[in-house]
């Protein structure tokens, strides 16, 4: 996180302005002090302190300034290592115990995906164990219109947004069902017709009440999605568009966002070039877990590999926290370590973008979640 390690003085002035000292902290309030506190990809506070109360962050700033103001009743936890915001996955289907695709029809825009989400499902604990504290609940790729997604936390069942986006898919799995449409041309024709009719979820998307996620994979599918979005004048998140780097200028100009599949061992070099192009063009991008079989720990590991390849570390850490929060429209609640946001925090043994770093503890809504030793499996 060595991008711009602010000196403690400057950071303190910036953050104290928040209404920290306004209400007096309650009895259960506690403070976390860590060698490095990563507010977001851009700012890291040396020897920083985070005051947590009632599931929210009350104050963030250098320990030198804040520790003095704390009442001695407040519990203080010292941590040698890093403290960061919880990782936000752009998409995921954790908790969808009865499956993320309903085969009733190809077009189920108004189906509420939150109704299939079980907050106590064991896979969520694995995600928390890897430092992922919230993600965009979305559908599988089995339908052209999979349903309306939500934004949920991986522990405690908090729903940040009960209906956040319409999940579309223009990739082969959605066209293999024994029903209309069985071709790209048929799917594009049907989707465009529904947007012009403007009924139900499609209408809400046109009116701007709902976000839009289009799942694609090959370059011609990205091209087709961009042409469709240009014709309908809509903005969307392209899920699984690993080749988006080839379209970076067009994506930036149209204001779309990209949810990539996580990097891993054996990733081919064009993926790093694609991410570099997205960073240079300023296209917001994040990593998603919906289309990968591997565990949640591959998000941080992939970002660490990208950092080793020389991609900007600040942009990479933002792509795990602030960017997905903004793309899912919940940057007021999660994604950064700042006063007023939820207390979703993670303690690491070192810089999380280093391969040798392990996870020490996870807090969701201020409550510590039983952290598994080492990288969660």
């Amino acid at each position: 996180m060595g991008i711009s390690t602010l000196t403690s003085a400057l950071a303190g002035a910036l953050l104290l302005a928040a209404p920290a000292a306004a209400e007096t902290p309650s009895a259960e309030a506690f403070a976390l002090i860590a060698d490095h506190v990563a507010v977001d990809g851009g700012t890291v506070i040396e020897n920083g302190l985070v005051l947590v109360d009632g599931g929210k962050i009350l104050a963030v700033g250098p320990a030198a300034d804040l520790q003095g103001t704390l009442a001695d009743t407040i519990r203080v936890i010292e941590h040698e290592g890093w403290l960061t915001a919880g990782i936000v996955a752009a998409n995921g289907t954790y908790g969808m115990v009865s499956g993320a695709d309903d085969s009733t029809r190809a077009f189920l825009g108004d189906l509420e995906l939150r109704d299939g989400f079980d907050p106590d499902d064991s896979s969520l604990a694995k995600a928390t164990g890897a430092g992922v504290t919230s993600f965009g609940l979305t559908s599988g790729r089995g339908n052209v219109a999979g349903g309306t997604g939500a934004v949920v936390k991986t522990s405690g069942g908090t729903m940040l947004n009960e209906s956040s986006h319409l999940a579309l898919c223009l990739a082969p799995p959605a066209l293999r069902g024994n029903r209309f449409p069985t071709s790209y041309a048929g799917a594009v024709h049907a989707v465009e017709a529904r947007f012009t009719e403007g009924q139900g979820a499609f209408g809400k998307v046109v009116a701007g009440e709902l976000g839009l996620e289009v799942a694609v994979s090959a370059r011609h599918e990205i091209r087709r999605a961009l042409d469709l979005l240009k014709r309908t004048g809509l903005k969307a998140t392209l899920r699984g568009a690993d080749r988006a780097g080839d379209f970076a200028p067009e994506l930036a100009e149209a204001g779309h966002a990209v949810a990539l599949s996580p990097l891993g061992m054996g990733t081919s070099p064009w993926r790093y070039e694609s991410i570099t192009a997205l960073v240079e063009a300023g296209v917001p991008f994040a990593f998603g877990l919906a289309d990968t079989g591997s565990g949640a720990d591959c998000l941080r590991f992939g970002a660490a590999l990208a950092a080793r390849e020389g991609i900007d570390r600040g942009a990479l850490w933002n792509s795990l926290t602030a960017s997905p929060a903004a793309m899912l429209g919940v940057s007021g609640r999660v994604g950064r370590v700042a006063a007023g946001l939820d207390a979703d925090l993670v303690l690491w043994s070192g810089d999380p973008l280093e391969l040798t770093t392990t996870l020490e503890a996870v807090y969701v809504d201020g409550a510590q979640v039983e952290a598994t030793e080492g990288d969660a499996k």
Partner: protein
Amino acid sequence: MLPTSLTRSLTLLLAVGAPLWALTDDPAPAPVETPEETPAPEEPVEEEPVEVVAPAEPATLLRAERVHVRPGEVLENAEVLIRGGFIVAVGQGLEVDEDTIIVEGKEVCAGFIDPWSTLGIDSASASDLGTEASTATAKAASPFGEKYARQWAREAGVLMTRTQVGQNAFVGGLGAILRPSASAEHLVVLDDANLNVTCGVSRGGRGDVFDRVMEADRIGSMISGGLSYREAQVEYAYELKEWEAAIAEKEAELEKDFKKAKKDREKEIEKAEEKDKEFKEERYKEDKRPRTPRYDADSEVFARVAHGELPLVVEAHGAAELRALLAATEGFGRLRLVISGATGAAPFAKQLAERDIAVLLQPLAPGARANGERSGFDNSLFGTLAEAGVEVLIGTGGDRAADLPILAHLAIAGGLEREAAFEALTLGAARTFDLADRFGSVEVGKVAELLVLDGAPLQGRPTHVFTAGEVVEL
């Protein structure tokens, strides 16, 4: 505890001169003789390399802020002088003539070695299940393979790999040490690095625990088969020598008595003619020549393994297989065993340390699948084994040797010391496969297989690479 007859015959064997196996033509061609690679001597003794006559091409001087001579030993602001592909001097202020090539860098260390790889051969050879003990990886090695994997390996600092054919087969054959990104004449560094065997590995269906454990016993019996094969050869050589001496003596005697025998015979013939009886030749008897033992290339390999001339790498994962394997290989004093995979090796840490058995592990990266016998592998095994004093090596297990530094980081996250990880990638791997006399560290007399990095050995990326006798800028 060696059987006495064996020791006697061993001494005799050495006395007989050229080792026995040279008698019959070993179909595998003589190990590739390239000027700077002297064949691996019997004992890895530190002997001075033959003094290379002053070559025409100029020397090269590497100057760096830190030179990692050996793991744990670093020289500050030092220089390394290289001539004819060999390190001729390490120190400060070395004298240099005007046409010496000067290369500057932050840090210098020995090139990394991936001791568990399939880079440098075609993928069919790597996964061939039809291999035997004498199948040689060097035969399938070629500079024409997939070029990117080799280039990326060199750019990551992995200059040499122990490449293995038939790595899933029960008996995989002879592994080889290769320079995957080098040209044809520098490709094969050592064409008989080890014998590779697997115990309880799934080859399409894993069978039940009894099959897997039974494989350990078969390995034990093959090694003892090797011992008895060598014994039979030594015995034959001894008996043949005795027989030849006896026959030569007899022949001289016959030569001497020939005239007398001839006269006796003529008399006999005359007598027979007189008695009109048919003359019967006198019967001649001599003891038979000892039978040459049938040459078997595979037993030959097991003989060399049993005598410790070749390390034996056994891939075994489950606790049941490991226990059976340790028991089956108990009695062979000179066997040099390396266990690879070792997913369930934690409970045997002490035993492995005592018997000085090296363990070759493939760290598990997030997102990589560990199923079948590998399921349950955890990187913390590195810390557990290191604490118990076991020599731990790190390998990629496939054709992506460029991932070795990344896997080393995951091993460090699993509890292995940074210094131990660096040793595993250099001197440790070299020592295990009889390369320590020529590779593995930055010392005078060794082959110059070096990295010039822009940071600490695992942290930084190589800016220059010195390999196969030439410096390559990346």
